[in-house]
């Protein structure tokens, strides 16, 4: 199973894999926002957590359409499905690899982009930790979405439409936790724990849904 993780990471690093594309896309979204908002640093720092979260959300969606469609195109999916490994575990690994190469770089890039958006050090810390806890859920839900659209030649758009509504709870609790960290009466721990719970829950449900979908949609 570790061989699968290693292979996924290798593919993502090589040309066309798109590990860096996500970070660049994130950078592009974050850079465009100050132009839209105008030269109001106070408003910008107020909006910064939301901008970072939405940027991370959109960047995480980028590679999803390739997660299973490419495996199917080159014939690897048949062999992945045929072996004795629990299929759910195979797809958990694929989703986890997707997070490692798309979500984790965004978390690491957050301090830099936080400074660009005039976010306080505490705000940067809170955004980083909520992104770290929340972005895996996007990859796991995305795995389920990607399995539905595996046969479509241009499935990317459909996957985004399927996945975005499902990640709204992640966004809600992520932002609530950051607000809790930055303003006094609101709690940080409660929404943060909810966020962690969502990630753990989807880490089981997402790969499970994908395995059921791909086992029975064979052609």
């Amino acid at each position, binding site marked *: 199973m570790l*061989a699968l993780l290693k*292979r996924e990471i290798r*593919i993502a690093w*090589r040309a066309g*894999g798109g590990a860096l594309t996500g970070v660049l896309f994130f950078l592009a979204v974050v850079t465009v926002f100050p132009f839209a908002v105008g030269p109001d640093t106070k408003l910008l720092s107020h909006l910064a957590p939301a901008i970072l979260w939405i940027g991370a959300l959109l960047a995480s969606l980028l590679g999803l359409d390739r997660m299973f469609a490419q495996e199917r195109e*080159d014939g690897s999916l048949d062999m992945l499905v*045929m072996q004795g490994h629990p299929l759910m575990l195979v797809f958990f690994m694929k989703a986890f690899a997707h997070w490692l190469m798309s979500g984790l770089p965004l978390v690491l890039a957050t301090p830099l982009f936080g400074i660009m958006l005039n976010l306080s050090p505490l705000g940067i810390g809170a955004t980083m930790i909520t992104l770290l806890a929340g972005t895996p859920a996007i990859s796991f839900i995305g795995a389920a979405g990607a399995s539905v659209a595996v046969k479509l030649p241009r499935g990317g758009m459909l996957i985004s439409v399927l996945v975005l509504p499902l990640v709204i709870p992640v966004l809600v609790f992520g932002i609530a936790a950051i607000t809790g960290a930055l303003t006094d009466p609101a709690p940080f721990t409660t929404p943060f724990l909810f966020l962690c719970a969502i990630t753990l829950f989807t880490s089981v449900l997402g790969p499970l849904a994908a395995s059921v979908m791909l086992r*029975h949609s*064979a*052609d």
Partner: protein
Amino acid sequence: MKLCVENMALMRAGEEVVRDISFELNAGEALVVTGENGSGKSTTLRGVAGLLPLASGEISLVDDTGKVFENPVREYCHYLGHKNGMKPSLSVRENLDFWQKFMGENLLSVEEALEEVDLSHTIDLPYYYLSAGQKRRVAIARLLVSDRPIWILDEPTSGLDAQSVTLFTSLAKAFVEDDGILIAATHLPLGLDKTKTLEIGS
């Protein structure tokens, strides 16, 4: 070891493509599946490989004492379809190494398997560098890195030149003579002693 397929029927897009497929293959026997284009050869092979849900019928693998293997038959199969199942951006070694680790039951090392298909010199090249025939041979090398008692091959020699076809038939022959079970959709004579034929769509 014996592979039994009884009254297999397969549906695709709500329509029955093949029906009443029955055959038995003992260890050391080969089955050549023939039929016109579109008659359902590939569908049949995918059905045996467990890649299509069966509409009816049963596939089972029985050992010499008559005991049925509990795991699904697909776990004992190598499947080589029209597509090679290799990642273009990885090198030949990385591709085969991954499949060996993922499939388990190591047989030949990656180097030895590539030597068998006469491609030792390409081991560190990215897979997309290779010609179509060489790509097919790498896919054939995949059959050699993990031990599976059943090979299911769909047009295994497509894209191969005459020399590579000879190479492939000798590999297939060695596999069958070593008590393997081979099912292939092919127009070429495999040169095997015990070959059964299954005509589809007649």
